[in-house]
């Protein structure tokens, strides 16, 4: 996380978002959601800043960030990959897809490739069970996957 230095422009957008929600700690989740949308992730400094503006403890902000899987404290790759691990995908071989991606990208689940191009995560059910197993790259859904298809899909991202 050391690489991230909070900039003036970040502070400005955080302040704007908080003001939009009237600095109400009751809207903490919505605020963090918007901030993450803006910055991509929620590093420590950002959480401190949100806590300062809302006049709540950093612990409370961190408590929320670490509780919900939607929030992340590490940056994602340029093309974030999420493999669906819902039950329907699981019984149709999602594990093999994850294994293949790990092998191809040489990263673990939760990791980012060295060049920052891809990150790999698992998520619970995108609701496209008819296409199981499914993965998302960014917002694009890839369905009816097989390990042999993975390489070509990854290669299509330049």
């Amino acid at each position, binding site marked *: 996380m050391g690489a991230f230095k909070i900039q003036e422009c970040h502070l400005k957008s955080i302040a704007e978002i908080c003001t939009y929600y009237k600095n*109400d*700690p*009751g*809207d*903490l*989740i*919505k605020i*963090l*959601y918007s901030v993450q949308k803006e910055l991509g992730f929620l590093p420590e400094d950002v959480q401190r800043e949100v806590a300062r503006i809302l006049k709540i403890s950093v612990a*409370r902000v961190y*408590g*929320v960030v670490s*509780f*919900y*899987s*939607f*929030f992340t404290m590490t940056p994602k790759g340029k093309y974030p990959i999420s493999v669906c*691990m*819902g*039950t*329907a995908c*699981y*019984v*149709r071989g999602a594990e093999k897809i994850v*294994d293949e991606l790990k092998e191809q990208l040489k990263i673990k689940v939760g990791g980012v490739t060295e060049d920052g191009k891809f990150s790999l995560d698992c*998520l*619970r*059910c*995108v*609701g*496209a*069970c*008819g*296409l*199981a197993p*499914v993965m998302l790259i960014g*917002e*694009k*859904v*890839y*369905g009816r996957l097989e*390990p042999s298809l993975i390489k070509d899909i990854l290669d299509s991202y330049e």
Partner: protein
Amino acid sequence: MASYKMHLLVCGGTGCRASESAKIVEELSVEIKRVGLENDAQVLTTGCFGFCEKGPIVKVVPDNTFYTQVKPGDCKEIIEEHILKGRKVKRLLYEDPTTKEHIEDSKHMQFYQKQIRIALRNCGFIDPENIDEYIARDGYSALAKVLGEYTPQQTIDIIKKSGLRGRGGGGFPTGLKWEIASKNKADQKYVVCNADEGDPGAFMDRSILEGDPHSIIEAMAICGYSIGATKGIIYIRAEYPLAISRLKVAGRQCRAYGLLGKDIMGTGFDFELELRYGAGAFVCGEETALIRSMEGFRGEPTVKPPFPAEKGYMGKPTNVNNVETFANVPAIILKGADWFSSIGTEKSKGTKVFALAGKINNVGLIEVPMGITLREVIYEIGGGIKGGKKFKAVQTGGPSGGCLTEKHLDVPIDYDNLIAAGSMMGSGGMIVMDEDDCMVAVAKFYLEFTVEESCGKCAPCRVGNKRLHENLEKICNGRGTTEDVEYLKNLGKVIKDTALCGLGQTSPNPVLSTIEHFYDEYLAHVTERRCPAGQCKALKLYTIIADKCTGCTACVRACPVAAITGEKRQPHVIDAEKCIRCGACFDKCKFSAIHVQ
């Protein structure tokens, strides 16, 4: 619908959108213009048809033609042949798997024949982003009826009489819940819609919100009137961007039509609606945790009582219902409690939406009357097991539920029968498993989920489930003993009795129910070190059948650890010591010469 002669309905649900349904809409519109029929035929994006297996779906009305797996490239032919010349495109029609007949009218598809659509009544019929289409299907007339003709108590009585029970899992009588909230006096009350669908493999709430958002808003307003609440909040997963955007559109349209806001329909009733985002925590489906989350805290459940109906959001009386529960409400008001209670079994009225998934031919969203049997669902609606394999179990109720087996195939499905069988209704996920699925691994899969999702507030759930998971891992890795199985049983019971919330109390169910129904399979793992389904990697033994091996060396090249050796054109052998049981050789072999045990 407007005065077009024909409508082409294209599924805009998440599954079909993933297969380019948006592009199909575009192409169809272009083609209609090209042949000059833009005043006769109209293309519409609708909600989910439920038949996700064969998506993307294009349905033509009024003749009910049901085109499956349509590609953007097929659009030209559909327009030229069907719309222009009136000849159906046979190759895109649904083919009955047994008779091999192309079915021309979707009413004759077995998938739809046993279904009764109440909660999904508008999904796949209307454009969810157009309030006029909802109104044309009697939308908001239930609200008008309630505001104009009934007192709040009369409305509650109708819901009570209908026998509607909570569709989110628990099955608590909805009318009773409303009545309790209505009797608590306060200056402000809240109606909350629980749209935090977190059960992996269940997507009914999302489909309703995407396909028929207005029905939820209408029902929430009816509920608000009944319990005396002027504020409604929809708590929805941030991971459902399409559903969120459709709700926002619907909300805007309602305000423009005076169906939300002050003095609705001139009756003096005020109702406002707001969205709150859930951020991916399964436990937030539990109503007290959901309320904590709405207040901007970690979603940790609180001790009941006090129940939300007494002290909920911001300490005020709050009524929380699930999406599907709400979706039933307008239909009950319009058609009456007697109509609704005539469907279903003695104690479970109406229908239930299930997300049918897993090893089944027709994956999709179905709505069936309570009391239907698993056999009807799996073999008639679901079209049987994929690849002609043998049915093994159905998992219902998600991580809180259990497995039903062959002996339950003829049990009528309702709340009470499922509980008696060691499972539960849950939100309606129905995952079908075949002979290749290891039940120990399935239990482990669910526990992994629960461990990850446990909020950590109470020890039985936080620590107990972790121990359960470790034990299952041990068994799957071939290091388990019969004592471990006993330990799982005992600890599971303790967690059930002592955990704080509904999530913790039900989390051992997948383990306990698989032990009960598939004890042999557990025994095989611990005594013979064998996985009968051949799924547990550590227990697999790969060997080469010398008679079948041609010595093509494909497996040698596929093996990542060089565990396979042999001369060209001679039978090869696998070194069991080196083998990491990845299965690469098995996948590569064209001669079925790799044997897995």
